[in-house]
């Protein structure tokens, strides 16, 4: 009877999970082996043909590189800021709750709203950054989002602002679980604050750091909403990311099988990261 009840309880969720996760994932793989059909030329089996054209597609390599730079540019910086925030907020600080709230607020905003606000900062001439630059330093106007050299960095600054407060709460929880005796002992030994941080706190926070890093990397592949507002991936795909390129290929160029091929690559990347994550979780157990 237990078998029947167990499966009965599971069935509604299982149908939806299979229908919208497992089946589409398998269908993606299958579709990537076919050419996209048109009115004149029906879809046909091309084996790994799509993967061959992917290897020759400069835009694919460009967006993949962008994804890499995007991850490298946002994750370490926002984690460093997050750690600093957590250390401050963990201290007895006047108006601590207010400060913590200020750090965390960007996390609850939708990426679209954030991009709407930041768009104006980056607008040439009338935008806030250009106005401040002209007023403070007398610098000429710059088209921040229109210049391939600055556009990706601009989106990174925005994402760092959005993410740091989220990572802060993990560090804060980890800091609060550290034994207060450690710090008292260090004080008695006359260790400086920096020395204590470098030799005691930071190593003890290592599991948290690794955990946040892997999660942030996985998440960085899903962060594309801002591109719809700020740049549409441009200029010349300089700010585009893999998932945004998939969207364009599927819904602007209507090349669905090629979009499936790109999705397979994205799934492989995510699966690889999940393996890393799994290893970390296994390791974390030994720390406790």
């Amino acid at each position: 009877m237990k078998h029947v009840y167990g499966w009965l309880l599971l069935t509604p969720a299982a149908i939806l999970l299979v229908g919208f996760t497992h089946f589409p994932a398998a269908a993606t793989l299958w579709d990537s082996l076919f050419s996209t059909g048109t009115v004149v030329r029906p879809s046909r089996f091309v084996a790994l043909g799509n993967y061959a054209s992917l290897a020759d597609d400069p835009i694919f390599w460009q967006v993949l590189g962008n994804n890499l730079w995007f991850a490298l540019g946002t994750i370490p910086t926002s984690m460093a800021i997050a750690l600093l925030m957590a250390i401050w907020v963990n201290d007895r600080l006047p108006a601590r709750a207010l400060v913590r709230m200020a750090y965390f607020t960007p996390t609850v905003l939708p990426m679209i709203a954030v991009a709407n606000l930041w768009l104006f900062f980056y607008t040439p001439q009338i935008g806030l950054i250009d106005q401040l630059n002209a007023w403070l330093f007398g610098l000429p106007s710059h088209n921040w989002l229109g210049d391939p050299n600055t556009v990706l960095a601009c989106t990174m600054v925005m994402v760092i602002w959005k993410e740091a407060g989220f990572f802060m709460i993990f560090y804060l929880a980890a800091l609060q679980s550290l034994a207060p005796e450690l710090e008292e002992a260090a004080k008695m030994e006359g260790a400086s604050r920096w020395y204590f941080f470098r030799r005691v706190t930071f190593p003890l926070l290592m599991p948290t750091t690794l955990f946040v890093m892997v999660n942030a990397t996985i998440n960085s592949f899903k962060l594309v909403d801002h591109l719809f507002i700020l740049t549409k991936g441009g200029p010349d795909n300089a700010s585009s990311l893999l998932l945004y390129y998939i969207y364009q290929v599927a819904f602007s160029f209507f090349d669905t099988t090629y979009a499936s091929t790109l999705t397979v690559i994205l799934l492989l990347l995510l699966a690889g990261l999940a393996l890393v994550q799994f290893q970390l979780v296994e390791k974390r157990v030994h720390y406790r």
Partner: protein
Amino acid sequence: MSPAGRRAPLLETAAAWLLALLWLSPLLYAFWAAFHPVEYATRFDPLAPLTLANFAKAWTYAPFPRHFLNTVLLVTMILGAQLVLCTLAGYAFARFEFAGRDIAFGLVLVQLLIMPEVLIVENYRIMSRLGLVDTILGIGLPYMASAFGIFLLRQTFKTVPRELEDAARVEGCSFIGVLWRVYVPLARPTYLAYGLVSVSYHWNNFLWPLIVTNSIETRPLTVGLAIFGAPESGVDWGVISAGTLMAVSPLLVAFLLFQRQFMQSFMQAGIK
């Protein structure tokens, strides 16, 4: 967030405040732009006249009431379905030994990694086959069986002492009765945490709703906001700020009121 902790040196206090101000400034600036006429957009004159005209314009330029309604419908529908489906599945995984349970659980966890927005191409195809393109149900359906919810409730249900269940059984409760009378009430904090994360996530979600909707009647706030805020719409800055603030205000107010619950829930969601 214990009262313990070292008293911060003055310099660090100042730095922490400065960073807090810097972090709030984009939002503070949005308030400035929204409540002032456009000619004061970058002129920070404390005596600048205040106005609500930007909000009035934003409200009429885009069908905000409809977008609000759609988002509320969407968020409620998803959360309602998630609570039912995840409770049942979480209960099955926590308390029933059935054939293939461990494999099934592993397959559920796959969704933690492959969120529906990664499979946009195929999920769109499925929705068009089901005739659910441009419906609110079509936006919500892929999210209803949430691996995160199932996982969270399974963990919570596992901590419920077996004796409570046995006692309820002796009283004559059916297995659904046990779930409803024993497990669900004890998991209330988990439901609250999960609910906050789910509502925030779907209030803010954009990519999948954008793909699957194409009319005002179904578009949620984020999609409406993206169309409204796009540079080519030619709407002026104060109006965009006002519209953006309107769209985020319900969640922002909820966050300001229940800060601690929000942070704890988001952390649980992150740790999984």
